[in-house]
C-alpha cells in the first residue's frame, strides 16, 4: 500500500525522523488557509502515490498568498502519471544546502532489505544511478541482525558524506530502518534528504510503501488507504475482494490465479487482441465471486467481449458455471462471452453451462481456442 507524502512523513515522525511541519488540504481555500498559518515562503505539493511529480510541476514554492492560490489551483486536479491530484500538502519552505538520497527497499533478488545512500539526491537520482552508479552507496541488511552502526558509517563514508555529517547520517539511517521494520514497509525513501545551512538533516520528501499483508498488525496504518485517488472500477473490485487492474484494450479477462490470468493476457495479445483488464478471481472462487467479477468487468463500457479462462484446482468449475449463470440473471450482459472451463468438476461445469444456454456465451475447449475466438468476437 503506497502512502501519500504527508502520511509517510507522519509515520517517519513516529520514529524520530526530522520532517518539516505542514498541513494537508483538499481545496484551494484549505490550501490558502494552511499557507497563511504556516507562513511564506511555503511549498505546495501534490499528494499522489507515484514518483517524479517534482519534474512534472507537482511541487511549487509560494512566496505569498497570491502565489499559493495560483499553485493550489494549478496542482489540484492535475494529472500526474495517470493519477489525479485530489490532495495537497502545504509545508514551510526549507533552506537547502545539499540534497542527499536515502532509502531502504525490500530486495527480492537478495532476499534482504537494501540500503541506499547518495549525496547526489534530488530529481535526477535515477539518472545518477545509471550514469554514475558508484555515486550511490548500497548494502544489504541481515534482517535478523538489523541495522548496525557500522552499516551507517560504511554507507556514509562510501557515499562521501561531509565529515561532520557522517554520524548524523548514520543516526538518520538507523531511524529510517526502524521505520522500515517497525511499520513493515517494503519501501521507505527520502529524496531529497536535505542538509540545512545549520548542518541538520531533514526528510523533505517521504515515499513509503507498506506491506498490505501486514496491515492487520498496524490498524493505524490500515486507515491510511486513500480510496478517493483510486480508479472507481478498481475500488469496486477491491470491495469485492478481487484483484483487478484496468488496461487499455476491449477484451475483458477473468481467470483464477495470477499466473494463469497473466498467461491468458499474453495469449490473447498473441492472437491480436487487446485485454481490457487483469482480473484474478482468486483460488477457490465461489459463485458469488464470479458474479461480482462479471459485474466489475462489464461495468467498463469499452469492453466488447469477455474471456473466462478457468482451470479448476481448489476452484470448482461447477461453482464457476453457477456464478456465471447467476450473473447473467442479475446483470443481463449483452456482449459475447467465451468460456473455457477445465480442471476440477470441469464436466459438471460445462454441462451446467450447456443446459443454461446463456445468450451469446460460447464454450471453448482449450485456452488457445478460447483466445482466438474472443479476439474474433471483439472485432
Amino acid at each position: 500500500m503506497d502512502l501519500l507524502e504527508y502520511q509517510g512523513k507522519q509515520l517517519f515522525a513516529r520514529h524520530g525522523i526530522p520532517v518539516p511541519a505542514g498541513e494537508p488540504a483538499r481545496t484551494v481555500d484549505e490550501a490558502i488557509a494552511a499557507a497563511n498559518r504556516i507562513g511564506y515562503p511555503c511549498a505546495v505539493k501534490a499528494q499522489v502515490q507515484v514518483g517524479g511529480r517534482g519534474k512534472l510541476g507537482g511541487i511549487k514554492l509560494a512566496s505569498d498568498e497570491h502565489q499559493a492560490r495560483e499553485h493550489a489551483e494549478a496542482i489540484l486536479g492535475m494529472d500526474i502519471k495517470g493519477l489525479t491530484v485530489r490532495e495537497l500538502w502545504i509545508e514551510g519552505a526549507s533552506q537547502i544546502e545539499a540534497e542527499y538520497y536515502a532509502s531502504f527497499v525490500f530486495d527480492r533478488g537478495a532476499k534482504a532489505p537494501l540500503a541506499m545512500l547518495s549525496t547526489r539526491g534530488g530529481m535526477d537520482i535515477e539518472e545518477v544511478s545509471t550514469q554514475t552508479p558508484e555515486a550511490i552507496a548500497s548494502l544489504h541488511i541481515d534482517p535478523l541482525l538489523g541495522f548496525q552502526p557500522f552499516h551507517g558509517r560504511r554507507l556514509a563514508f562510501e557515499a562521501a558524506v561531509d565529515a561532520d555529517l557522517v554520524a548524523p547520517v548514520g543516526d538518520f539511517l538507523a531511524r529510517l530502518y526502524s521505520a522500515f521494520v517497525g511499520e513493515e514497509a517494503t519501501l521507505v525513501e527520502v529524496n531529497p534528504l536535505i542538509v540545512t545551512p545549520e548542518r541538520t538533516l531533514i526528510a523533505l520528501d517521504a515515499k513509503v510503501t507498506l506491506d498490505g499483508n501486514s496491515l492487520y498488525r498496524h490498524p493505524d496504518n490500515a486507515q491510511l488507504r486513500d480510496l478517493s485517488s483510486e480508479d472507481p472500477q478498481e475500488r469496486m473490485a477491491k470491495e469485492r475482494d478481487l484483484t483487478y487492474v484496468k488496461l487499455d484494450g476491449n477484451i475483458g479477462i477473468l481467470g483464477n490465479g495470477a499466473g494463469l490470468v497473466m498467461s491468458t493476457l499474453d495469449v490473447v495479445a498473441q492472437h491480436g487482441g487487446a485485454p481490457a483488464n487483469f482480473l484474478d478471481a482468486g483460488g477457490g472462487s465461489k459463485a458469488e465471486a464470479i458474479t461480482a467479477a462479471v459485474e466489475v468487468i462489464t461495468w467498463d463500457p469499452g469492453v466488447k467481449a469477455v474471456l473466462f479462462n478457468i482451470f479448476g484446482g481448489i476452484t470448482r468449475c461447477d461453482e464457476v458455471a453457477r456464478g456465471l449463470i447467476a450473473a447473467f440473471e442479475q446483470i443481463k450482459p449483452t456482449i459475447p462471452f467465451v468460456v473455457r472451463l477445465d480442471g476440477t468438476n470441469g464436466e459438471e461445469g460445462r454441462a451446467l453451462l450447456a443446459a443454461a444456454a446463456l445468450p451469446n456465451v460460447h464454450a471453448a475447449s482449450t485456452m488457445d481456442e478460447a483466445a482466438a475466438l474472443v479476439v474474433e468476437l471483439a472485432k
Partner: protein
Amino acid sequence: MSVIVDRETRLCVSGITGREGRFHTLNNRAYGTNVVSGVTPGKGGQDVEGIPVFNTFRAAREQTQANTAMIFVPPPFAADSILEAADAGIATIIAITEGIPAHDELRVYTHLRRAPAVRLIGPNCPGVLSPGKVNVGIIPAAFFREGNVGVVSRSGTLTYQVGHELAQRGFGNSSIVGIGGDPVPGSSFVDIIDLFEADPETELIVMSGEIGGDAEEVAAVHIAAHISKPVVAYIAGFTAPPGKTMGHAGAIVSGSKGTAAAKAEALEAAGVRVAKTPTQVAEIAVELLGG
C-alpha cells in the same frame, strides 16, 4: 523416483482442524499420502478422521515420526508455525498459506538458511505432487500421472494449465513443485531444478515463471553452468501493465530486470527453450522427448 515428497513422506499438518486444512489433508490422504499427524495448539489428543492431533510439532514428530510438515494456518500464525516445525526437526516444510507478511517471511527465510537441513517450499504455493505416489497440498492430482517431466512453477493454476497441456500430449510427471509467488520463497527455481537434475526419473525439466524479481534470470545462469537435462521454460506476463512504482529505489535496484522479455532472453541465452504459450511447452516437450 520423485523429488521432495515420496513414499517415505510422513506428513504432519499444521492447521488440520481448520475447515480448509481438514479438507485438503483428507484429500491428500485419499490420494495415498501417509498423513501421520496434525498440530493444533489446544486440540492435542483429538483426532481428524483417525489422524491424531498434537499440541506441538515436537510432540507430533516424537510420537508419529513425521518428517514433512504442511502449513495450513492463517497468515498471522503461519511464520510461527514454520519456525516451530523447523525447531522440531521436521526436514521438509511445505507452506500453503497465502498472505504472510513480507517481514515475517524475511525473518523465517534468514533463520532457516542457518539450518541447511531444513527445506521450505512456499509459502503461498500449491504444494508438491509426485503423481501416482504422494500429494502434499492443493494441486488437483486427478489431472496428472506418473512420468518423466519435472515441473516447477511460481504460480498455482498456471502450473495446472502447463501440466494439463503436457498430459494431453501423453506426458506424465516425476513431480510438480509449486514454489510460490511470494517475494521470499523458501526454495528457488535453482533449488528445485538441482533436485530434478539429480532425480533419475526426470528426463525433462519444465519451469514456469512470471514477471517480477530475478529468480528466472538467476536460474538461467545456473542452468547454463550446472544442468545437463533439457529445460523448457514458460514466462507469463508479457502483456502485464508496468506497475506504478513509488519512488526511485525500485528502478535503481532492478533496472530492466524482472520483465518477461528480459527473463525469456536470459533463459534463451542459457540454452533453455522458451515457449510462448502453455500449449507450446507441450509441443517443445514432444520435440525433445518424442511424442
